[in-house]
């Protein structure tokens, strides 16, 4: 899993089968000190509560689909938690 900031939303009416009702958010991946690292990705919101401005962690690849209520959805990034705090010692 990686840290990310939710920076936007995506609305798509025409979607492949299985993606109905899935919320898509644009997530900027972060390094562990909270600085942007790499290109933003479109991630499915497995929590159904994440929103713009929140710091989250997300999972990529096959495990992204496992996070969704229907586990056979074609998604490659999914938000699985909202960060309260990152403690780096």
């Amino acid at each position, binding site marked *: *899993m990686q840290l990310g900031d939710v920076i936007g939303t995506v609305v798509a009416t025409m979607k492949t089968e299985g993606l109905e009702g899935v919320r898509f958010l644009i997530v900027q991946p972060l390094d562990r000190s909270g600085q942007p690292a790499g290109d933003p990705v479109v991630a499915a919101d497995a929590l159904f509560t994440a929103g713009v401005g929140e710091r989250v962690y997300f999972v990529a690849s096959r495990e992204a689909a496992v996070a969704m209520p229907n586990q056979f959805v074609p998604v490659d990034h*999914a938000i699985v938690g909202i960060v309260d705090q990152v*403690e780096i010692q």
Partner: protein
Amino acid sequence: MKLGRISGTVVSTINHPSLDGWQLRVVDLLDVSGASTGGYLIAVDSIGASTGQTVLVLDEGSSARQVMADVDAPVRAVVVGIVDEVTIDGTSLEV
């Protein structure tokens, strides 16, 4: 598996139900000389590792689900061992 060093903890109240009760660690990835590569993973801690310890971290989903005994866990990265010693070409690394 990869070598990593625990550098911190992620605190999260709202999370996927499969992550309830699991500690999340920030794991800095290490190269074979023991230096940080600059990369990191947020990993489920299955063994109670402490900050600063060198660990073995998995980055593969079906193994993670096996360790967590949860077929619905949306997790790839799991801390699965605390490293005592690494030797490469007869030379021990500081761990």
